[in-house]
């Protein structure tokens, strides 16, 4: 191990050098995923598998990692050089495809069972549920992160298949379509929400912190963490698994 890990060797709660043998997939390398990828690369995670079909846009530059000269470049390609420069030890595998279709889906199906952890950094609820189902099926831990529409709050959800609540558990609105009517977006409803690099950095850090615990087995994994930026408050919720959950429950229909 080279000297770049000198401070990490002083960490007493776990042997961080074991990260060199770990393989972590990151789905979505936007404001959240790009930061998580950089943190994990600097920690010395052996292999990072990145998924994102999107290209770098000028609107992405308010967040970290991407540079102005990378506008128009595929995100997974743009970040590859950055990660290698940050830590040449890390091996980066990139898939510039949509994970719900064609080559991206095929790659995700192949890669997920081979990974020790999947980080969900997507902006679509549908894809979150899809990743959740795939990780539960493959029995690979998933850590989903997300920020609120107003940019100041966020959450991190740790899904350890068979142990903690999955993403579909404990969400009443997901069980019965009659619980809540569909939203009529007649008042505004722009689809591009604000995104603060500060909140993104908090959520990405929490995501990676929980990821370390899952990968190395130290500390107590928080099943669900909520971050309230305006109040400066962090809240842990110990959700129970739902036996009737459509994705992970034993009594699912």
């Amino acid at each position, binding site marked *: 191990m080279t000297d770049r890990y000198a401070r990490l060797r002083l960490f007493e709660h776990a042997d961080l050098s074991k990260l060199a043998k770990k393989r972590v997939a990151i789905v979505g390398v936007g404001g959240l995923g790009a930061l998580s990828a950089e943190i994990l690369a600097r920690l010395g995670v052996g292999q990072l598998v990145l998924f994102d*079909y*999107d290209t770098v846009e000028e609107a992405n530059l308010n967040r970290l990692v991407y540079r102005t000269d990378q506008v128009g470049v595929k995100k997974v390609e743009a970040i590859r050089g950055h990660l290698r420069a940050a830590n040449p030890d890390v091996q980066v595998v990139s898939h510039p*495809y*949509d*994970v*719900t*279709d*064609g080559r*991206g*889906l095929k790659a995700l199906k192949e890669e997920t069972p081979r990974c020790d952890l999947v980080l969900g950094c997507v*902006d*679509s*609820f*549908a*894809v979150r*549920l*899809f990743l959740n*189902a795939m990780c539960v099926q493959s029995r690979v831990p998933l850590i989903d992160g997300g920020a609120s529409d107003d940019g100041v709050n966020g959450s991190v959800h740790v899904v350890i298949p068979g142990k903690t609540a999955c993403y579909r558990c404990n*969400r009443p*609105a*997901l069980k*019965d*379509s*009659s*619980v*809540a*009517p*569909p*939203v*009529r*977006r*007649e008042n505004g*409803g*722009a*689809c*591009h*929400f604000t995104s603060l690099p500060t909140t993104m950095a908090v959520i990405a850090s929490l995501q990676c912190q929980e990821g370390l615990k899952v990968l190395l087995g130290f500390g107590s994994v928080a099943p669900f963490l909520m971050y309230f930026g305006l109040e400066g408050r962090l809240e842990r919720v110990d959700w129970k698994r739902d036996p009737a959950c*459509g994705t992970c429950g034993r009594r699912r229909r």
Partner: protein
Amino acid sequence: MAYRFKPTAVLLPAAMPLRIRDYGEAHLKTDDDLFYFLQCATVATPGEPAWSDRAAEEVYALDRFIEYLRFLEKNEWISIRPTSAAKSRWTGKVRNAGKEWDIELVLKDSYPHVPPACRIPELMHYTDRKVDDGVLGLRICDMHMEKTYWWDDHASLALYLKREVSYWVQSVVKDMREKGWL
């Protein structure tokens, strides 16, 4: 001579799939529950052998939805049919405010685990209610589904039209009218 009814020989037209699940029938509570019959029984992705069953159920559910619109709502605002052999790409017309626009739906390889992706090309220019999509380019935004997410593996394309596309079109047309574009 009395006529003897033979149910096995009559009721099912040839095109009707055998497995339509009466999903949700036990808890009819809201108007939206009227659409319980828009649920499919078979869960299969376009690449799987059972997809032909699922595709038949999708067509059947869509036909029932169009009938509902025609006879009960008196507003047949959508007409759409599969245009690829695998029935994974659907095209048609969507109507509102006396106008008619092309509509395109793509059922990705992970459908029905994820909802369809939908594009109404002409309206894409007039709204920010769109998101980038890996297959369709720009498609209508369904991020608001996060608030009341209803999609599951049994939900059909017809239900997506009812619960997603119809509201999307209504809201965009309302905006366009207010801005004097329509």
